[in-house]
């Protein structure tokens, strides 16, 4: 950001400087020509004129370069000084968000843990109530965690990266969802071929789970979960045969709380998008050629 602002300052100044320099060169050229006017037609006059103009050019450039360097340094310090309060404010905001999330999650952890412990000796009716309490606290805590994640810029520094085989991520997640898909009368079809990415396995599972959660809510009969890779990129694709994404919704699909229609709090796709970006990849909605339903594909840089 500092570099970009410096570059803008320098570019503006360089343009102005170039304008002034050309104008000066042109002006001096005119003066010389009017001074040399009678002799300008002779070869001596011509060469004298060109020699003089060359020296003028050298003088102008010699003056411009140090000025430009000085301005560049000045612009850098100016950019840094003017952006510092912004960076500091952003840092404070992030710290506040992290602290607030932590303070909110602690009581939720107490609620969830105590409710789960209390159900051990409870009668069935009370047990159902305690389950609701525990589940709600767990959901709220997960929501806070998601918001905290989304409050930060997606960058690799927030990941714990290692070589990960996407086919392992896909197979593990498919097993987790298999029973739920069957219970919902859906077929979960898995086509996993190996592709190794430099990724955070836990985060990649979260990405896959979020896409599967979304597919589970919308699919009519089948969900297809695929992964693989070509020479440069690895992909992970989740396709459902539901109603698909309305054209009006596509723009804000990955924004927070955008798709909270059929259950779900609307952060799943934003988080998936965040995770893909943090891996220097993308999450896109693929327009299937005539195929119904939605098809999400995460493209991630592949390890050589």
């Amino acid at each position, binding site marked *: 950001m500092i570099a970009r602002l410096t570059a803008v300052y320098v570019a503006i100044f360089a343009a102005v400087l170039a304008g002034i320099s050309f104008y000066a060169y042109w002006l001096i050229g005119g003066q010389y020509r009017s001074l040399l006017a009678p002799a300008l037609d002779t070869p001596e006059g011509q060469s004298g004129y060109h020699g003089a103009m060359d020296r003028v050019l050298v003088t102008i450039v010699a003056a411009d370069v140090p000025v430009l360097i000085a301005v560049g340094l000045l612009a850098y310090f100016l950019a840094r000084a003017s952006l510092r309060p912004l960076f500091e404010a952003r840092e404070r905001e992030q710290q506040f968000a992290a602290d607030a999330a932590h303070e909110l999650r602690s009581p939720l952890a107490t609620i969830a843990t105590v409710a789960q412990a209390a159900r051990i000796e409870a009668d069935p009716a009370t047990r159902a109530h305690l389950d609701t309490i525990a589940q709600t606290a767990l959901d709220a805590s997960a929501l806070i965690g998601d918001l905290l994640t989304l409050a930060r810029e997606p960058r690799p520094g*927030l990941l*714990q990266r*290692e070589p990960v085989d996407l086919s392992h991520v896909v197979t593990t997640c498919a097993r987790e969802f298999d029973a739920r898909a069957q219970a919902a009368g859906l077929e979960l079809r898995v086509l996993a071929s190996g592709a190794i990415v430099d990724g955070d396995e836990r985060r990649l599972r979260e990405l896959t789970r979020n896409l599967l959660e979304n597919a589970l809510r919308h699919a009519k009969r089948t969900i297809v979960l695929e992964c693989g890779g070509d020479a440069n990129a690895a992909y992970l694709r989740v396709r459902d045969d539901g109603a698909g994404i309305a054209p009006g919704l596509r723009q804000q699909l990955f924004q927070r709380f955008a798709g909270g229609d059929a259950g779900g709090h609307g952060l799943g796709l934003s988080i998936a998008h965040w995770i893909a970006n943090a891996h220097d990849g993308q999450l896109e909605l693929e327009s299937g050629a005539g195929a119904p339903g939605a098809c999400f594909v995460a493209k991630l840089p592949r390890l050589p």
Partner: protein
Amino acid sequence: MRILLIEDNLPIANAVRAMLEARKFAVDVATDGVAGLDFLMRETYDAAVVDVVLPGKTGFDIVREARAESIHTPVLMLTARDAVEDRVHGLDAGADDYLIKPFVEEELIARVNALLRRGDKPISSVATAGKLTVDTGSREARYDGLALELGTTEFRLLEFLARNANIAFSRAQLLARVWDYDFEGSSNIVDVYVSQLRRKLRVAGGRDVIETVWGVGYKLTA
């Protein structure tokens, strides 16, 4: 089975104790870091469940100091934050596993049982194979005295191979034992990790430490 629980939040401490006692574990509770470390040093436990944020001493300190005193009780770390730094920090300090609060009861029990299974056969924290030493206590690996900079999975793979030196393992076996996967997939993830380890070993002067056994897989020669 006897478990030590170090947790300063009383409602949570009582709740976790109730969960563990319902599974017939004997549970001791310490509510601050100093008392917790003291319990861990003096008594014998099959596993410990340790919160990170504690008065007196943090959970990281407790594990580090216990490991320094050669106490290898398996430790499950409870952390309130889902931060990468916390995970790495906890495992680096010598914790065996971590669980993020709030957790689901079944998850806690599953993790504790996994620790107890691991603790069944007491193993030394240091595995030695030839010039290679892998210390799971301090999470350090050295070849010929030179420290190797390893990622989490690289470390686990090297530790496994060092503990089972001169035995050849297939890729599927390594995936099952080191990665906990019971399916092979079609990638060469094991080869990727082996070649990374070989590169790092070579830098430390170790050639042909991990051998390719044709038709089988890999073995570490000591």
